[in-house]
């Protein structure tokens, strides 16, 4: 059909346009972070449509209410500046939602016209007679720069920067807790991280934490802002942590919350890859052992043991199978590490993100591979399709967000939906990617997907595989 990318034979090496994007814009990531703060409401300074589109995009993944306010620019606002709309918007959000915090992110429009957020918010805070205003934090997220992941990480840093107060920690866990910055993972992943830290008896401030706000129980009475999220007290206390753990090998050096806390408050920062698969999880658990002073609880060593056992049981089904891995950079690095350690051959690792650290990170987690995986950063889905055809890569399966569905369909291979966003299946927020337990689920999923292909693609219909 004419809709398929036709040019496999004479590929244009440098497409100017982006065709079937593998990324979203920065404010979306920021809005998601703000949903992970207790009592907070995200607010986009820009046009009405941005908030609505992002709500829709996020709702389709999380299947949860996703209120994002906006200053709703009009033509006049764009000419004369958005201060009035911003103030009115903040007033209205406050009177409707009574939030503890409003997390404001800019958009391409407000960045382009050069809105002075600092100044305007300063003015707003200083207006007379408003004692119990919500806290206001803001992050600059020009949509023309970076991706939703950059918006996410920048928002994490901005919130920590703006709320951190030295010596503010509750005495109960002063000097004895860690900050954990997990990056964009699922709600289930966040619950898992909290569970692990608790099992290590290691108090932790996890930020953002949308484990409950974006995967909450059925309600009897509508809650304006769902329960859960990182508490403001905990966010204020981040400088008193004994260390920060940030997950993600491709995080931009110096631009993260952990690096801010290190530079400003000398909180040691420990950067670990997203703990997907055994190798990356080992590093994560080792870090927790060190920070907590406790051995890894038996619960986890047993999980690891079972996982190794499962790898052995299933190794033949996976050996040499060719995988195309697509998604957010750190998710791809983690998944690649996991797949490579099971014997799968990652033939192409691709992302719409462009941190500059992607290729290096993939190389780091695949040192034992005889053939290094091909890595492409800052690409879109049509470019990936052309790349596959050009190099005749013939993947057996695709693993990544549901945006890869079209591509997988064209290739005629299964797509294993992981990461973000998952728009055509239920439960994306409940997928556990992390830890031995997560790897166990991923492993079973990958093996069974391939077995299903094997079973369905022949006429015999084996009863045992």
């Amino acid at each position, binding site marked *: 059909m004419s809709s398929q990318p036709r040019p496999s034979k004479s590929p244009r090496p440098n497409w100017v346009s982006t065709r079937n994007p593998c990324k979203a814009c920065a404010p979306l990531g920021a809005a998601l972070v703000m949903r992970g703060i207790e009592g907070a409401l995200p607010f986009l300074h820009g046009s*009405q449509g941005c908030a609505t589109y992002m709500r*829709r995009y996020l709702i389709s993944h999380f299947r949860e209410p996703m209120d994002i306010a906006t200053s709703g620019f009009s033509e006049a606002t*764009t000419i004369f500046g958005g201060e009035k709309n911003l103030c009115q918007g903040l007033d*209205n959000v406050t009177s409707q939602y009574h939030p503890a915090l409003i997390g404001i992110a800019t958009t391409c429009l407000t960045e382009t016209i050069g809105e002075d957020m600092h100044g305007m918010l300063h003015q707003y805070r200083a207006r007379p007679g408003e004692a119990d205003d919500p806290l206001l934090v803001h992050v600059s997220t020009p949509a023309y720069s970076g991706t939703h992941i950059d918006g996410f990480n920048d928002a994490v840093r901005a919130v920590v920067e703006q709320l951190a107060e030295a010596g503010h920690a509750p005495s109960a866990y002063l000097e004895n807790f860690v900050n954990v910055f997990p990056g964009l993972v699922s709600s289930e992943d966040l619950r898992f991280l909290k569970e692990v830290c608790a099992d290590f008896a290691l108090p932790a401030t996890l930020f953002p934490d949308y484990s409950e706000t974006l995967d909450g129980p059925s309600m009897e*009475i509508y809650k304006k802002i769902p329960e859960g999220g990182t508490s403001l007290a905990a966010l204020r206390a981040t400088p008193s942590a004994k260390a920060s753990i940030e997950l993600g090998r491709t995080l931009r050096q110096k631009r993260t919350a952990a690096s801010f806390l290190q530079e400003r408050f000398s909180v040691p920062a420990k950067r670990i890859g997203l703990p997907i698969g055994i190798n990356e999880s080992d590093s994560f658990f080792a870090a927790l052992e060190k920070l907590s002073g406790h051995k890894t609880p038996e619960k986890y060593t047993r999980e690891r043991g079972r996982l190794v056992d499962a790898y052995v049981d299933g190794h033949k089904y996976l050996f040499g199978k060719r995988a195309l891995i697509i998604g957010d950079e750190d998710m791809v690095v983690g998944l690649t590490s996991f797949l490579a350690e099971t014997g799968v051959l990652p033939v192409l690792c691709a992302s719409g993100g462009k941190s500059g650290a992607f290729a290096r990170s993939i190389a780091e987690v695949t040192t034992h591979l005889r053939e290094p995986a091909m890595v492409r950063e800052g690409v879109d889905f049509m470019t990936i399709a052309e790349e596959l055809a050009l190099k005749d890569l013939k993947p057996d399966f695709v693993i990544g967000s549901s945006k890869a569905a079209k591509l997988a369909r064209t290739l005629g291979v299964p797509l294993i939906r992981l990461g973000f966003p998952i728009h055509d299946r239920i439960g994306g927020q409940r997928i556990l990617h992390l830890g031995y337990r997560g790897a166990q689920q991923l492993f079973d999923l990958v093996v069974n997907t391939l077995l299903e292909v094997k079973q369905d693609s022949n006429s015999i219909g084996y009863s045992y595989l």
Partner: protein
Amino acid sequence: MADILRERERQVYRKGDLQPFQLDCEKQSAAGSVSQRACVFCGSRVVLYPIADALHIVHGPIGCASYTWDIRGALSSGPELHRLSFSTDLQEMDVVQGGEKKLYAGLCELIDAHQPKAAFVYATCIVGVIGDDVEAVCKRVSLEKGIPVLPVHSEGFKGTKKDGYRAACDALLKLVGTGSPEGITPHSINILGDFNLAGETWMIRDYYKRMGVEVVSCITGDGRVDEIRRAHGAALNVVQCSGSMTHLAKQLEEKYGTPFIRVSYFGVEDMSKSLYDVARHFKDKEMMKRTQAMVREELERLMPQLADYKRALTGKRAAIYVGGAFKAFSLVAALRHLGMTTVMVGSQTGNKDDYEQLRELCDEGTIIADDSNPLELSSFLEEKDVDVFIGGVKERPIAYKLGIGFCDHNHERKEALAGFEGMLNFAREVYSSVMSPVWRLTPRRRGSNLEVVK
């Protein structure tokens, strides 16, 4: 009860209220109100998107293109170029230096690769601000490539979704009249405002075919550029989704003298009436007979099946929140047909006449709301103890969170809800949500102790 924002007090009305009916509408959404509305770009994109053999390129940073990639259920019987997402993906340097070069190069490469019949260029938020002359680039590419390249001025902040409709209609107007109307029969129409969601246009086309009416073009469901180019040859424009398409119909009337009528394909009564109205317009006895026979045939098949659903659904309460108010009229009627009452109805973009008509249609006590938001909607659902909420993806989690059934009646739906068959699907959709046993397990229906609300 919801805290309704002061600015919005006059945008919510309860039928039976003492004060005279006056609902504020067609206003810019209050800042910070968390409106369910989208923007100008969305309006344009909704209308033009189903044209399947045109190239649609979003000129701006990536977000707008990402969020609209293949989100609509508008089907095509042939090319599917519309289901791909193209963007100039403007970067920091482009913002500084302008995006015209990139737009030019992007358009050229995409037209070369996909050979579309026309190209639509959507200008999003920052395009005007950085000073791009989109018009000039389009003109140049059009000359070079020999196809219409049409700018769509859809900067998000330049009005509301309705302005986006208008921008889309303006682009369409440039296409209409550029093809030859030769061979078009006197009993011919254009279908305006059906977008072939889940194949609805095909069903409607089939009805017209059985009536003996020639469909010249559908604007824009399963749309084709060449069909639209000769749309001025049709004898009548049949307008559904009047909010988006009335502008185009009026322009066509002015320019080509083509009359138009408004119809709705949702619900049994409205569907039948639409077909009769078209037949009546052509003053052709035979056609009327064929239409009557067809409607009878369809109803004979449909009614017994509907009766079954009606038995189960009678007395259930529905809430409606949709984009255009016109659709709400049909929904109120369709729900009544199923024995259900509409206890709350609202729209993003209704006008005074729309709301007046809604008020007449609804029972006492019904809440009518313009440009509502999640907090209001959730409180209406609670207050009216609603059984099923009819809306779009953004309304869905509000219903589900409260343990309330839901039916998607937006552009993203995957079930055909128009036509006679669509009425059956609609009944089935509502039925399979309302009658699900899962509600019994939810805290709301289990009737456990009320929690204290803040």
